[in-house]
């Protein structure tokens, strides 16, 4: 494909071209608008939102909504702000991402380089598990977490996210390792290298890109999860659940500016990851959807 230019651009008149630019810009506005609204209204005093224009820049700039969202806002019954929940999310996300990625890497290595009879079935079963509606496992999961004494705890959430994350991480690593020459693995085997040695010395050094994809995918999904957090979080809820409690609270005045600051706080980690490693993020999305 090297001789082919990348885009499928066709020749067209100047007016058509101008219209295309206009449309593309309008869509950019559409995508940026909610972010802009959240941003400007999170640094306004409440009176300016309820009595003013949501699109206008603040007349008085203030960071109080951010301070309030972070450390004093009423979440449920406690005026703790989102800080402890942010911490819960971190404590949940880091181990869940690390464990599921390591397991996915080993699984992918085995399913491509140590094939055995029935391995396609094993992979197929794991693959389908990526796509189940989680409602189908909520009830038994609640029972099992209760029996294990993990209900309402961060380790419980880690377990849940690892269990329902390894399907995707396995998929990523399997598809990636499938393109790695198996001859190299066989040659190392003849030279006396063992199972872990081959993984450590030969596969792992080339796994950088796919590891980044897997980590980003898992991080985004687990950070953004709401269903499991709301169902099994108990008093150790993650950030998304706390944000929802903050926004939906029916008592007192609706502090829109605090809600917006909280929403940005909840979005910040994944947005940062996206800004820093957006290319990999896209690749991860594609790898998760187009398997062929």
């Amino acid at each position, binding site marked *: 494909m090297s001789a*082919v230019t*990348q885009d*499928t*651009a*066709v020749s067209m008149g100047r007016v058509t071209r101008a219209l*295309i630019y206009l449309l*593309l810009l309008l869509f*950019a506005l559409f*995508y*940026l608008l*909610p972010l802009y*609204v*959240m941003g400007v209204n999170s640094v306004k005093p409440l009176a300016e*939102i309820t009595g003013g*224009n*949501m699109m206008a820049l603040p007349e008085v700039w203030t960071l109080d909504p951010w301070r309030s969202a972070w450390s004093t806002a009423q979440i449920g019954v406690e005026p703790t702000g989102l800080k402890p929940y942010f911490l819960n999310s971190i404590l949940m996300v880091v181990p869940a991402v690390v464990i599921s990625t390591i*397991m996915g890497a*080993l*699984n992918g290595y085995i399913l491509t380089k140590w094939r*055995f009879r029935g391995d*396609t079935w*094993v992979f197929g*079963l*794991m693959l*389908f598990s990526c*796509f*189940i*509606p989680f*409602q*189908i*496992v*909520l*009830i*038994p*999961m609640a029972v099992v977490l209760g029996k294990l004494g993990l209900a309402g705890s961060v380790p419980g959430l880690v377990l849940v996210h690892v*269990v329902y994350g390894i399907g995707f991480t396995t998929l990523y690593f399997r598809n990636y390792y499938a393109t790695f020459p198996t001859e190299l693995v066989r040659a190392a085997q003849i030279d006396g290298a*063992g*199972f*872990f040695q081959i993984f450590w010395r030969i596969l792992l050094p080339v796994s950088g890109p796919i590891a980044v994809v897997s980590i980003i995918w898992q991080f*985004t999904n687990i950070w953004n999860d*709401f*269903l499991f957090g709301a*169902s099994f979080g108990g008093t150790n809820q993650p950030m998304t659940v706390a*944000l*929802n409690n903050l926004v939906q609270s029916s008592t007192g005045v609706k502090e*829109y500016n605090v*809600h*917006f600051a*909280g929403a940005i706080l*909840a*979005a910040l980690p*994944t*947005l940062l990851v*996206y800004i820093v490693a957006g290319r990999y993020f*896209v690749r991860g*999305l594609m790898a998760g*959807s*187009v*398997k*062929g």
Partner: protein
Amino acid sequence: MTVSTAPDFRTRLQDWLPKLVLAPSFAVTILFVYGFIGFTVLLSFTGSKMLPSFKWVGWENYEKLWALPAWNTAVMNIAIFASLYIVICTAVGLMLAIFLDQKIRGEGVLRPIYLYPMALSFIVTGTAWKWFLDPGIGLENVMHLWGWQSFSFTWIKDGNMAIYTIVIAAVWQTSGFVMAMFLAGLRGIDNEILKAAQIDGASNWQLYRRIVIPLLRPAFLSAFVILSHLAIKSYDLVVALTGGGPGRATEMPATFMYSYTFTRNQMGIGASSAVIMLMTIAAIMVPYLYAEMKEKKG
């Protein structure tokens, strides 16, 4: 004894090691995915209320479920939501991809702008759109302040229209992702085919309709599968944006399942609704995954 020919312990361990390392993942999948599915299916045939019980009631839960107005609303809503969401996302994504592919200056800036909503959680998206669409402080208020006094946009408060606000927010979140899928597809098309067609005198419209879009078939299929799967699972967005309301106007199967199981203590009915959700997704995913895996082998 045939010590000399039998493999030593180390070799045998090496033979078993791969399966041993894979075993925990496989066991966990069998137990937590398929075992749990089995358990929920079982519960859907029992009279479970607040806690699981094993009193067999046959198809009673399913009969009750389909007689419930709330469930019928939920099914109706998911049908409206899923079809609009899939069609609009695909149309917007395809259009943006085709336009972005015309040697656009600033593509590198536009692409991430289209795509960033995908990095946000549905709860954040819901919160942002909830206030943006709120007549009191959001879009309607802004238009009034800008002098368009007759402007009215109260869909989010209107039982008949609220479902469409969920479509708007969901399209906002994922259409950029669909764009990225189509763009990847477009970049994989051999330009020589297009040049040949142009030499033969095909118009731009014909070019895309007859040649490019048919070549994007795999991307259409992937988009359909991913979007329908996202649509059926949609729970967070509804919770954050409308909370299932006004009234129960935007109830979806996912919210129905949750409220019947955990707040209304009708676990049997909740389980049967989850089973129906699973069946719907499986009907779409299983043939797709099967075809994907078969293609790979061949």
